[in-house]
């Protein structure tokens, strides 16, 4: 029996052609399931504090990638509450795509209305029908949460929860409710987190005396209880423009931060909306380690490092086959037959490869033995100057490596020392990564930390780049040497005109990963619409197209014209200029011949009549192909398929 009823099928939806399934799901995987409770402060203060969305003055360059900034230009000032809600909404959307098994709850505190299991005042747990309070995100949750701002004041309402004269303690209640939500699931297999978003650094500022002491004590105790149950509490503090969030007033005690840790803990400084959102986004997702690796440096020295997958292609996810009648999943059962005798086989223990007209047999164990080379270890082989790492030395996405002292004390300091040496000497390390499925030679490239106003841009650490072997590199450059006896080189003048074009079309603010994948966005928008039974299919904007406006600017047009003139000369017709028009390849000539022939024959039939009278099926496949060729339709498939295709094309 085989359980693989859900197959990753990147080719069908994402027909890139060269995407092979082995390459798709990388052997490295994320570890455990996560449960998060977003605790969002909804006090009036969250609505009064705003931060401007003003973007640093646009560059005066002729052509600046403005897509990124355009988005923000249209936005007005946003309140802290809006920022929190937007960030959660976008986190939910990412989560439903990437980690839909993780569970999430959204809980507001300092609210007018209450809704929670314990019936506590000032706490409102938001959810939608067909979903528990803490559950996997659903299409409906995302849709309704997207417009929560509109209904918030009516249904939930904002109110100060901790006031002098009452015994109400909304923060305590919120923590209690969150802990209650996180009761399910074993701590062994799940990461439980409470993420508190607030801009109030002194929640008990309004009250005084014994009551205050009492409230603080019970609240801290509540937090400690939760932490002892394995729930981690994190805070995303938002700073008001006039008043920086002071962790040590109260929250440092709640989180158990001390000394140095506290100093490192920076509040999210809310000067620019985009920056603030970026920071929120970064802190919302928990780092997930891929695996711990033993990094052997040689001569008996080895350290421990953790690997992380910071970039991995996101694809539309696995296909689950359903029975179209019931819409329930089907599972596939696989059975093996001997093709010689037709008898049913149990899983065959042996494999074979034909070699020199012989069937060479291997056992499964033998094959894995062949692949086994220093499993589980990363072995340092030596160092090379960075200039020797070429742009074509790449096969798959890189893996990030960061030291850990958890098992081997001292790993971090060795790692930092090596990292700094590599950066200073401009060298990279070559190592052999012995994974069991695909052992590989890798380059370890040192990356220094990059910090900008909006926080960490690149963490310090090493990136493991999978190097190709000679078997994987193709000598394409030499492929056409027969056609180009001597390769022409651009003259200095031509290079100069190219330079001025390059200078004009500068993407000032380009950053890797600024575009979202239009194919994927469309796919998920369609899924969401279908999941919610909406009729209208959403339209997704494609950000990846060139900036037409930018290219139409006179200076760019002139620069490009000049470059064109300098390399192509005047009156150049791009379409017809190939020196070897006579020598077009065999295949394309054949294709042309077929097309010519088809268009000649095409005229001999009255296709519409044939279709109406149902006589298409009486034609031969060759005849049907005349139509398909002329109309530029695919010509593959069985006769029946061809007929259907023609009928569909005619709209019949």
């Amino acid at each position: 029996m085989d359980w693989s009823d859900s197959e990753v099928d990147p080719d069908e939806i994402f027909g890139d052609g060269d995407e092979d399934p082995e390459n798709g799901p990388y052997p490295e995987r994320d570890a455990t399931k996560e449960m998060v409770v977003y605790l969002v402060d909804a006090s009036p203060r969250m609505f009064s504090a705003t931060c401007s969305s003003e973007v640093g003055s646009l560059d005066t360059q002729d052509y600046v990638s403005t897509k990124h900034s355009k988005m923000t230009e249209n936005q007005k000032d946003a309140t802290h509450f809006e920022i929190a809600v937007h960030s959660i909404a976008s986190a939910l959307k990412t989560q439903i795509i990437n980690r839909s098994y993780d569970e999430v709850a959204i809980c507001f505190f300092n609210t007018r209305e209450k809704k929670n299991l314990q019936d506590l005042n000032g706490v409102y747990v938001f959810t939608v029908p067909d979903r528990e309070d803490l559950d996997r995100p659903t299409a409906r949750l995302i849709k309704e949460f997207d417009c929560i701002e509109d209904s918030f004041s009516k249904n939930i309402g904002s109110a100060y929860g901790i006031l002098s004269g009452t015994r109400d303690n909304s923060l305590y209640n919120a923590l209690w409710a969150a802990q209650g939500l996180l009761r399910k699931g074993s701590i062994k297999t799940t990461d439980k987190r409470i993420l508190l978003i607030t801009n109030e650094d002194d929640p008990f500022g309004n009250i005084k005396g014994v009551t205050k002491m009492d409230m603080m004590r019970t609240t801290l105790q509540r937090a400690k209880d939760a932490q002892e149950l394995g729930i981690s509490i994190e805070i995303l503090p938002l700073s008001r423009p006039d008043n920086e969030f002071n962790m040590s007033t109260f929250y440092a005690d709640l989180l158990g931060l001390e000394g140095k840790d506290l100093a490192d803990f920076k509040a999210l400084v809310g000067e620019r909306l985009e920056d603030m959102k970026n920071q929120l986004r970064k802190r919302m997702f928990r780092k997930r380690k891929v695996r711990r690796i033993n990094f052997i440096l040689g001569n008996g020295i080895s350290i421990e490092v953790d690997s992380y997958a910071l970039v991995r292609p996101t694809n539309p996810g696995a296909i689950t086959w359903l029975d179209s009648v019931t819409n329930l999943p089907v599972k596939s059962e696989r059975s093996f037959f001997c093709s010689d005798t037709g008898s049913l086989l149990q899983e065959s223990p042996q494999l074979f490869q034909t070699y020199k007209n012989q069937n060479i047999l291997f056992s499964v164990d033998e094959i894995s033995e062949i692949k086994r080379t220093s499993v589980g270890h990363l072995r340092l082989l030596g160092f090379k100057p960075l200039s020797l790492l070429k742009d074509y030395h790449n096969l798959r996405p890189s893996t990030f490596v960061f030291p850990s002292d958890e098992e081997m004390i001292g790993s971090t300091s060795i790692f930092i020392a090596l990292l700094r040496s590599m950066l200073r000497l401009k060298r990279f390390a070559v190592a052999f990564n012995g994974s069991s499925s695909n052992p590989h030679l890798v380059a370890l490239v040192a990356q220094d930390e990059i910090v900008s106003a909006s926080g960490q841009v690149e963490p310090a650490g090493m990136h493991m780049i999978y190097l190709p072997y000679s078997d994987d590199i193709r000598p394409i450059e030499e492929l056409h040497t027969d056609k180009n006896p001597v390769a022409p080189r651009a003259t200095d003048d031509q290079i100069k005109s190219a330079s001025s074009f390059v200078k004009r079309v500068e993407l000032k603010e380009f950053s890797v990963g600024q575009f979202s994948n239009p194919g994927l966005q469309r796919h998920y928008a369609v899924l969401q619409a279908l999941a919610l039974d909406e009729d209208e299919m959403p339209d997704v904007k494609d950000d990846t197209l060139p900036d037409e406006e930018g290219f139409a600017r006179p200076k760019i047009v002139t620069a490009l014209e000049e470059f064109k003139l300098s390399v192509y000369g005047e009156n150049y017709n791009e379409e017809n200029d190939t020196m070897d028009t006579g020598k077009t390849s065999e295949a394309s000539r054949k294709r042309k011949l077929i097309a010519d022939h088809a268009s000649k024959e095409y005229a001999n039939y009255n296709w519409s009549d044939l279709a109406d009278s149902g006589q298409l099926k009486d034609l031969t496949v060759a005849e049907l192909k005349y139509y398909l060729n002329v109309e530029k339709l695919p010509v593959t498939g069985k006769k029946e398929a061809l007929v259907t295709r023609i009928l569909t094309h005619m709209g019949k």
Partner: protein
Amino acid sequence: MRATRIKDPYEGTKEDQVNTIAMQMTAHGMKMECIIFRAKQDCDLDKGVMEENDFLLSLFSNKSSSKMVYVESATSLLGALRTRNISPVTTYRGDFELGPQMRIKVWVYKKTSEEKFPTLKKYSNKAPPTDKFATHEVKVDYEYKSVEDPKRVVPPEQRIKGYRYGPQVVPISSAELDAVKFKPEKSVKLLGFTSASNIMRQYYMKDVNLFIAEPGNTKAILAISALARAMKEMNKVAIVRCVWRQGQTNVVIGVLTPNLSENDKTPDSFYFNVLPFAEDVREFQFPSFSNLPPSKQPNEQQQEAADKLVQMLDLAPAGKEEALQPDLTPNPVLLRFYHSLEMKSKDPIATLPPLDATLKRITEPDAGLLNQNGVVFEEFRRCFEVKENPKLKKSSRRIIEEKPSGSDKEGEGTGAVAMDAIEYPSKVDTGKGDGYESKDIVDKQGDYSSKVTFKKEGDDESKFKVEKIGDDNPVQDFEAMLSRRDNPEWVEKAINNMKQKIISLVENSFQGDNYLKAWECLVALRKGCIMEQEPTQFNKFLYKLDKYCHEKQLDDFLEYLYQRDVTLISSAEAPESKVPECITRIWMGKKEPKVE
């Protein structure tokens, strides 16, 4: 490989003869690759002969389609010999649009493409040995069954694709999907240029393509050349948007980096690397190294030792061949497989050959280089201290914050302790110095194996020493074995041991007296398999157990388990598992599931 057999006196000079041969080769479309092996010590060879050979061979490469590669080691020689010649096909032929007014005709090829380990066919031995025409192949037949009602077969054409969206599975027919799909036009468009430093190396996503100007198209070659050289000079790269084929349902954003040709025969070109989309990047925050406590920061002396190591362990020393150059480094796994094929073709029962010494140069550090730098390593080791974390208990493998128990907090790694550890191991004070064997360390100095334990706490020994699962406390033994860190094989061993234990408990049970224990073991095994990411091990075992109990008429044990709700590990609990969450329980309802 050497141009010897050229006779002097008859048909002109050697040079003329080579020219004639080269012309003939070009006329016949022959290509030649010369791999010239230069051992490091060939000083006593005749310099004159070598130079003449080089000269004659270089004539070939100038006059005909041949190329020369110099190699200095056996490993590089293996790498230079191409095992399989692939005739490349273009990924794209068409316009590279620089803007609305200008296009360059380009062809795009794959520059790198991972050569996969061959997929072997399944072998069937059912055919009678006398049947000479037997294919021995295995046919696979798929049958689809409803999850609700496993007896009902669903014909393949009645299936419909469903995509997960959160907990929902959304059915979409192919036609429906096709109608709403994103369908960009086939094109390659320039978005703009940016500084090369803006695109960090770690963002290259896939194998690499090569953009060349349309062969034979002089104007296109010039345009690419001008652009590539301008970009190189200015240290810029181009960001492009590509749709390789009509009907492709996604776009690719990538970076073009100039690849300037070093000889007159090949035109300039661009390397193309795919860049990630916003969805592909996971922005995790990591602590800054500069904010770490001083104990974790290297001091000046340590930094110096690291500098020396990075400098001296040099794979590309001046005047010598660059070691492990990707273009000259073969895939050791593939070569080992080919070697095994050859051996087995001669002797079907031959055992697998070990990894060849030449190939070990790829997977292991070069002993020569290490010996040469023995002093550097000694110094490095003297400066740093690495030791196992003594506080790490078996349970803390999944981090639940443990309170530091103050007193045994290790002194922040001072160099002196480490030095002692190496040179006078017996004196090292680990509290219970007995756990320490000096011989061990001495051996390890020569051996670059993985096990480096500088210290071991005596009282931890007992926990680490569990080697098999006993009768008294199977669950505890199992957990102890799983947490052994000295060898990854313990996990596998523990799991297998536990399986045997469960079977034997069930087998030897009298009126179900062992069932409780067996169930506890099974629960522990399940937990262990989730933690160790081995869900398949557990799931397969559960099937086996099911089958076994049916065979041995132990259905009451199955009933016992059923009541206690033991389920398969679902993909929600462990991503490796192929069992969807919704069907983890149905195995119990069946009489005889087949086991793979």
